[in-house]
């Protein structure tokens, strides 16, 4: 596999990053980021995920050196304190949503730019650019102007340009957002392959949870300038720290229940329970609610909508009281609007918020 040989020769240093008390208040007093502590392990791909305006880009720009944290904040690459270093001396690779390729240069000139700035000898430069273009499957486009490339090709050029200088960290700000869905999937796979192969520390910003789950070793969920949760995709999905994270990632149902003396009553059923006592709000994923018969079901309701998704049919069930629940049934399920159904809840897969 020539590919894997290439990737090995391109293996990059895995530098850990530490943010200590990094807050950001913009001129005019707007607090974009509450002081934040975060350690990113060397070689890890970490994803900042959150709704628009929550401070993802601001955090990325603080790591890059395009913004400085409020006084007291520190940014460390490995043991080196880079807080005072401007971006041009931090040796970071950046990839933007808008590609930001130099329009007055060809593909090869774009990729060579960082090497030229570093005064790498012409022959060496040419070889490294060629290697990089091959790695990104861009060899045939070397002489093209930027406006002769598709969006996906442009973003691959941007990746090549950022990586060819062997940066200590790769920073990507919504690199796939400008692409259409199909291209987004294939380029996401390519980025995934690249990041694993290179072993570089990468910070990836997105508001797309699918992207975050697929790419991130760990995900930092942010809300309103704060970190809501840091964890692996599984932790974030199955053990959301709070209601915000639960609602933001995937679909989450909310059920009212009453826990008393080791039992939990939901609807008409009473289940064994070891969680907190009292009136609790229960969070359940659609796939953790099962359709059942009247005899063994815990909760009755009426189907308000059924959406056929191919591999499954997504039902919206309205119980006698409480908010509507989303449940997944088999793809071939014949259930439709108005049908009466019973649901079972597995108490082990339920999360309780007192």
């Amino acid at each position, binding site marked *: 596999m020539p590919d894997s040989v290439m990737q090995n020769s391109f293996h990059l240093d895995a530098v850990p990053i530490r943010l200590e008390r990094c807050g950001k208040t913009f001129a005019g007093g707007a607090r974009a980021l509450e002081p934040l502590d975060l350690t990113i392990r060397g070689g890890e791909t970490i994803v900042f995920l959150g709704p628009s305006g929550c401070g993802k880009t601001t955090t990325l720009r603080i790591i*890059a050196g*395009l913004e400085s944290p409020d006084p007291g904040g520190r940014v460390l690459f490995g043991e080196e304190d880079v807080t005072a270093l401007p971006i041009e001396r931090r040796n970071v690779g950046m990839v933007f949503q808008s590609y*930001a390729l130099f329009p007055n240069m060809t593909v090869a000139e774009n990729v060579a730019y960082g090497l030229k700035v570093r005064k790498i000898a012409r022959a060496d430069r040419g070889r490294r650019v060629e290697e990089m273009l091959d790695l990104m499957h861009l060899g045939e486009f070397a002489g093209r102007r930027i406006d002769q490339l598709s969006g996906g090709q442009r973003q691959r050029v941007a990746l090549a340009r950022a990586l060819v200088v062997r940066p200590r960290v790769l920073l990507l700000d919504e690199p796939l957002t400008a692409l259409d869905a199909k291209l987004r999937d294939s380029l996401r796979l390519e980025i995934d392959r690249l990041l694993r192969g290179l072993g570089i520390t990468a910070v990836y910003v997105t508001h797309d949870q699918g992207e975050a789950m697929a790419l991130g070793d760990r995900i930092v969920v942010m809300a309103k300038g704060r970190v809501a949760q840091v964890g692996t995709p599984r932790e974030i999905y199955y053990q959301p720290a709070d209601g915000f994270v639960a609602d933001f990632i995937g679909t989450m149902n909310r059920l009212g229940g009453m826990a008393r003396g080791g039992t939990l009553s939901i609807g008409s059923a009473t289940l064994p329970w070891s969680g907190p006592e009292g009136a609790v709000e229960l969070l359940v994923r659609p796939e953790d609610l099962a359709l059942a018969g009247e005899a063994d079901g815990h909760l009755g309701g009426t189907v308000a909508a059924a959406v056929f998704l191919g591999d499954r049919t997504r039902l919206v069930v309205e119980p006698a009281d409480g908010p509507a629940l989303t449940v997944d049934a088999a793809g071939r399920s014949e259930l439709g609007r108005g049908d009466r159904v019973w649901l079972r809840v597995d108490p082990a897969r339920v999360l309780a918020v007192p």
Partner: protein
Amino acid sequence: MSACAQDAPLPHRPAARPPVRPGWAGEPLRLAALLAPAAVVFAAFFLLPLVRLILIGAGGTAGWSAYLTTLADPGHLDSLISTLALSAGVTLVTLAVSTVAGLFLVRNRFPGHALLVALLTFPLAFPGVVIGFMVIMLAGRQGLIGTITQALGAGKLVFAYSMAGLFLGYVYFSIPRVILTVMAAAEKLDPRLEEAARSLGASSWRVVADVILPALKPALISAGALCFATSMGAFGTAFTLATRINVLPMTIYTEFTLQANIAAAAALSVLLGLITWAALAVARSVAGTSVAAAG
């Protein structure tokens, strides 16, 4: 898909005849009628005087060769060369000053910003005569600079009536136009491009050379071409300064009013027009290709 199907001839259906618009045959006529007023104005106020001017240039005792002999006159040639040099110098200095100032004004907001922009663009409102007057007040025999240098014991510095005075005046009235163009172009620069260059290790100077100037190039070329053309044809300032330098418009004026050498004046006018027009055309084609290359 559907567009293709519509364009392709449909073999199974009898071809539909294109609908005949009533009065279609009259269309070119109507168009001509609509264009007529513009054509008349163009002919009367642009084409006729120009042709007349060209003919007058050839109407002297020397005939068509007047166009060559006018230039053979050392006075005229000197005048042409110094006008070209002056205009080129003014263009370069104006571009340099305006680019730096324009970029600074776009990048930095400070109290008094709007006022400063307004002041910088103030000379737009002045005719050349007023500019000349201002140069005299600054660097003339009773001017501010002369007074100051005299007070400092360095002798009275007077340069209003020389090439330097003219240069100063031209730069002064060229800056507003160019600065406005530069500012408009600089507002549209993509800050991500600069950030990308910096992330790759580029210093501020490299960012200017590799990112900002290439992006501003089309605007600088067109602004520079206009600045050059304006300087070539400017008259009021030179007239007011009664300068010892004979710029081409002044030479034309002298030939025409004082020497009554109408043929020479006309020939010089045509030459002035041609050179300026050529400069503009070259600039436009260079700017055009660079715009295309920049995508």
